[in-house]
């Protein structure tokens, strides 16, 4: 007989399949490009926030510098495409691998720092990345890079008016990152990472390889974040350092996970599903007046959630389960 744990895991998969099925069907009934744009952003942030969640949620290493990996992904695929004509699909993979390598190089010194010091280091490193790209003439400095769009094409992943190809790619990415997280949860690494998060010293004393755990989590997290960055560059078809590498992006990746439930399978998706439509719709329908009501409203919602449910919205549905017999 399957244990309660196995049943719960299987239920998670069924829920995920149902959610993905609904999300696949959703845009078929929504023809408005503006709403489609919001859907794209929502699933993109669900994927990005889940990537962030792998390092910061499961392994407990709070990063506020993921804009670095996002920017690396965006610039890697765009530079390869614009300068060498390499199609973005290869650029995406290259960007992901490069970002993972950077995460390991950065992690080498930084994972020796504990707690807040690690977080501060991630902010600083992302700022260094921003300044480097602002001054790198080959990458267009502050002027950024324009992705040429000649017509609809899956090869170059560019589409003139349609948002649906972008939507389905982002949905696929979110599903893959979710699945990776799902399998990690019940793997040796998943238990190592959570042990590191809960109590590094205790984990170490039990034989958990703390440093290697952190490095692995950082590489996986950076890889998927960079894929998201490449996707964003293709989606907007124009990038500059101020629009892909600023601190604001690091926050936007962390926020959905924090609001939804940090270190949980569904937290990032729930958070993104609430935050992204909220910020987009309030800006569009309340922000035109220039009075800032949209931001007051947005801030108030975040504050209310943070005060009422500091452990995230997901804690509303997950009841504390009874102790095993």
């Amino acid at each position, binding site marked *: 007989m399957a244990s309660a744990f196995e049943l719960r895991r299987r239920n998670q998969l069924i829920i995920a399949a149902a959610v993905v099925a609904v999300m696949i069907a959703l845009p078929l009934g929504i023809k408005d*490009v*503006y709403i489609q744009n919001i859907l794209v952003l929502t699933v993109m942030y669900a994927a990005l926030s889940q990537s962030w969640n792998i390092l910061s949620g499961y392994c407990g290493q709070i990063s506020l510098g993921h804009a670095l990996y996002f920017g690396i992904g965006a610039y890697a695929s765009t530079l390869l495409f614009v300068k060498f004509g390499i199609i973005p699909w290869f650029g995406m993979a290259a960007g992901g691998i490069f970002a993972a390598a950077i995460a390991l190089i950065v992690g080498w010194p930084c994972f020796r720092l504990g707690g807040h010091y690690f977080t501060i280091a991630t902010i600083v490193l992302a700022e260094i990345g921003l300044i480097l790209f602002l*001054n790198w003439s080959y990458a267009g400095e502050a002027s950024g890079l324009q992705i040429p769009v000649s017509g609809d094409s899956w090869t170059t992943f560019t589409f003139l*008016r349609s948002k649906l190809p972008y939507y389905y790619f982002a949905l696929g990415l979110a599903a893959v990152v979710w699945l990776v997280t799902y399998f990690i949860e019940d793997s040796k690494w998943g238990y190592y990472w959570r042990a590191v998060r809960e109590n590094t010293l205790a984990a170490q004393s039990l034989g958990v390889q703390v440093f290697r755990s952190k490095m692995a989590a950082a590489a996986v997290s950076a890889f998927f974040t960079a894929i998201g960055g490449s996707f964003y560059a293709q989606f*907007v078809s124009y990038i500059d350092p101020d*629009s892909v590498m600023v601190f604001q992006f690091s926050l936007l990746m962390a926020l959905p996970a924090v609001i939804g439930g940090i270190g949980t399978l569904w937290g990032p998706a729930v958070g993104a599903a609430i935050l992204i439509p909220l910020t987009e719709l309030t800006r*569009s329908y309340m*922000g035109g007046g220039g009075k800032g009501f*949209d931001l007051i409203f947005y801030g108030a919602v975040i504050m209310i959630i943070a005060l009422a449910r500091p452990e995230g919205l997901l804690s509303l549905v997950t009841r504390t389960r009874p102790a095993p017999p």
Partner: protein
Amino acid sequence: MKTKITRREAGALVGGAVAGAFAPGLAQAQGKQIVIGGLYPLSGANAQIGVDAKHAYDTALDVINNKHDLDLPLAKTEGLPNLSGAKLAMTFADHQSDPQKGRAEAERLITQDKVVALIGTYQSAVANTASVAAERYSIPFLGADTSSPSLHRRGLKFFFRAAPHDEMFTQTMFDFFDDLKKKGKPVQSIALFYEDTIFGADSANVQRKLAGEKGIKVVADIKYRSNSPSLTAEVQQLKAANAQVLMPSSYTTDAILLMKTMAELGYKPPAILAQDAGFSEQTLFNAIGAQGEGVMTRSTFSLDLAQKKPSVGKVNELFKARSGKDLNDLTARQFTAAMIMADAINRSKTGEPQAIRDALAATDLPGDQTIMPWRRVKFDENGQNNDCTPVLLQRRGDKYVTVFPAEYAVADVVWS
């Protein structure tokens, strides 16, 4: 669509024939509105720019939709005469200085609000993505106050810019140096000081290039991080280089810090010729007081044009009544953009995006029918107006006066 217009025109004719007194009522009953979209930063660090822009556009709509005794297109009539007096309206969206949001808002205005044209965007990066969106939906896009030269070099068919781009601004500065040379006061050396943004980089690149062509020595070439907490090291370099003209490209907070640090370190260059931005802001001169005397900047606009063009003073009064401020370089360009767009919509006769685009492309508006110091408004095949001369201003007491070029100057330049 064509038949509709014919019917409306016929209706207007019949109305006119039956009784003149009915005509206004008829126009009102038709009450057609033509809506154009405005994309501006309305929240965040640049929110004030967007709020001021709204006042500028509201002023333009007032001039277009109501009767005013001004020598500007559509001022003397109510609404758009060729569209049976339809009123022009604008709906605004907040792009928060983000290219992605700018594009999303452009698409929303086009598909949901059915705007027939777009105007914006202050930031060139946002204009980049928003104008591409407009192109994809075949909606004309008029860049009111964006100055990156790259914008009109992308082969877009629906992109237009009536105002000068950064290369034209810098060209005027070097034309001024040529003029000084003729007067026997040649400029030998300059120092470039610019922020590390698209604006700063573009500005310095052209300054460097033109200085090379004219044999003017660049003795300092300093790029700094915008919104820097300290500029002491940079100012020391400037002081050591001791150029004849200091040419800063900086926004307000950096400009204030630059001038204050210069005062602290006892550095006063013989001349300062700024690339607008922070140096067009009253805030800077409030902060630095007497140190601002004699500072020069390029601009697209100056209030003392009112001495040569009466409409400038009147429009300024209308704008001031709304905003409590005088027109400046940005708001004057925004007002003018709306006037040019309205003129094109009126000439399009149908108010359809494609017809408006063609009307914009055919625009040939004499400079004296604008509030700007421009020769005329006529777009080249890239959508750029090349007949919009920038002006150079010099600080005298508590205001700027136009000193170059001679046709718009109200005072002689003070140059040591």
